[in-house]
């Protein structure tokens, strides 16, 4: 059986790398896409050596939305599975005062990921098969004072993925939304995260691959986050607006 190619958008990030390793370990050839892709040469060699699968590097910038069709055309194989891990948190206070900073966060987490996954959706629909995975965030479940610029962009992505899933459900194309919660990555380095609520990138990767195999729709990497976010979503707004969480 030939295994489907897996494209990872944002392959330099800790979660992206972990997802590439996870699928490669399961026998999938992987396509690693990121900015300055040539600097991922050592990771490509590592993956090929460890798992005996092919790995290719592809230049990709999520902000260059005009380049997306050309990017897809240039891939040596249209992947069976595409995973978008791209994201950028920024600094909330900066995002509040600086429109350009806020725009960068919105475009990196919503516009770019949604556009590229939308472009793949059309190709997959045409082919009649494929899986689209968007790594969104629990921050998108409800806007909070501490990170609502990032959170709202992720909320947009989550809604986009949900709509895409609805549109493609009868077309042989499946859409998975991954909500990781806290993850121990470069993005969260130095933050004091509670250990029980914090996933390792490898846990996100394993949960993602399982969700793809089982055709799950929306997954929280650590089940406790589903409970936490259910509570947070259900706090009445008059109360919620006074909380600092």
């Amino acid at each position, binding site marked *: 059986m030939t295994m489907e190619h897996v494209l990872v958008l944002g392959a330099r990030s800790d979660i992206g790398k972990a997802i590439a390793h996870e699928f490669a370990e399961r026998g999938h050839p992987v396509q690693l896409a990121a900015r300055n892709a040539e600097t991922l040469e*050592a*990771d490509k*060699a*590592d993956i090929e*050596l*460890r*798992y*005996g699968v092919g790995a290719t590097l592809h230049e990709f910038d999520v902000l260059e939305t005009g380049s997306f069709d050309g990017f897809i055309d240039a891939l040596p194989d249209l992947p069976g599975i595409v995973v978008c891990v791209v994201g950028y948190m920024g600094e909330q206070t900066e995002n509040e005062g600086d429109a350009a900073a806020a725009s960068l966060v919105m475009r990196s987490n919503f516009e770019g990921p949604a556009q590229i996954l939308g472009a793949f959706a059309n190709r997959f629909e045409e082919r009649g098969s494929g899986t689209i995975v968007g790594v969104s965030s629990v921050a998108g479940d409800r806007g909070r004072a501490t990170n609502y610029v990032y959170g709202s962009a992720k909320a947009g992505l989550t809604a986009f993925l949900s709509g895409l899933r609805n549109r493609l459900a009868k077309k042989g194309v499946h859409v998975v939304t991954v909500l990781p919660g806290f993850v121990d990555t*470069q993005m969260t*380095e130095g933050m004091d995260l509670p250990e029980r609520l914090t996933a390792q990138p490898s846990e996100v990767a394993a949960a993602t691959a399982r969700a793809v195999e089982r055709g799950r729709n929306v997954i929280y990497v650590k089940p406790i986050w589903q409970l936490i976010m259910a509570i947070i979503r259900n706090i009445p707004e008059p109360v919620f607006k006074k909380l600092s969480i």
Partner: protein
Amino acid sequence: MRLSGWGRYPVLETSVIAPRSVESLRSVVREGPDVIARGNGRAYGDSAIGRTTTVHTRHLNRMVSFDNQTGVLVAEAGVLLGDVIAAFLPRGWFPIVTPGTKFVTIGGAIAADVHGKNHHRVGSFRHCVEWVEVMGDDGEITRCSRASNSALFDHTLGGMGLTGIIVRAAVRLQPVETGWIKQKTIAAPSLQDAMNAFEAAQDATYSVAWIDCLSTGRNLGRSLVMLGEHAAVSDLPGRYARQPLICPTKRKKSVPMDLPSFALNRHTVRAFNAGYYWMGVRNGDTKLVNWDTFFYPLDAILGWNRIYGRSGFAQFQCALPIHRSRAGLTELLQAIAGKGMGSFLSVLKRFGPQDSPFSFPMEGYTLALDFPISDKTLILMDKLDRITLEHGGRFYLAKDSRMSANTLNRSDDRVTRFREARNVNGWRDRFRSAQSERLEI
């Protein structure tokens, strides 16, 4: 943050940095004021806790190349031995030297110059290391081997990270036909019987003994000596022979919480040890076990360090020269059993010759056992130190968390030269661990 080794004692404050590239590692090293590398944190004590800064190598964990003619793997320091096995056993290769856990990094294995069940035949990890690349205090990387920069090579193997940051290494693997080991268990009712069994088994590829350190009198030092040979395909029953390099894996168990300190006491441990010994006697003889069970029995219980409870534990491991082994071991075991403070994870092993300037092994015997941390056990371990010194033995720094600088000095006249090399090469200014400070090396 607060950091400890595998024994969870001591717990010390240090700043932990996990660089993602050689460039960022370089700037951390240059910045100082002093650093120590940490692999997967499997040293028991404070070897891999920085006095100020601890550099975690977990992101520097890529495999670089593999030569399937010579079996030489080039990998970054943070690659785990378990990853090497996962990648290369299916292709018929296995580490030549492996310690009792696969959750160690290649960098850590080099720094501690770990040994395995085949030390009597091949020596320590050094045996399979072709070269090492070490980052010095100026951030420059030097490749060292037996042939070039040999002084750096010699001091880095067993140097506990005190010669610089190990960045990459070339490590030779051995070809194997299967992932299975033919294990023979010999019940030895006394220490002398166990030593006789080791001496008679010098040709065995692997040998190790589980020793009951709570039995006394006639039974003092009773052991189960386990010998192992790599199985050939022709040794396997049909169902395994079809895929000889793939072994069925058991689900890992894990210790979900710290056990209360009363869970381990002399009665529970004595009962466990007696039961384990007699089970070994009954099951004796030869059987086929997979590599994971043979080499890494404790890895099957994730987080087993939690059974000792919140205050942690210390491991005592010494090596005794061959001509003093019997007398020394007898005295050590009498001291331990007399206090009734032995653990059930006690290991006895025959070492072969070792030739390197600062590695732990020496021709003779090594004894390793755990103690939950308490005032009483700390006093007992001081006594074990004294007995070891009297018999010309020395101590394994990868296990140590509490001995004194004075004890180290008296145990090992190589320390002076190692310290000198640290001073002469400027390593001492930049590369320091909590352990190197405590031991003044």
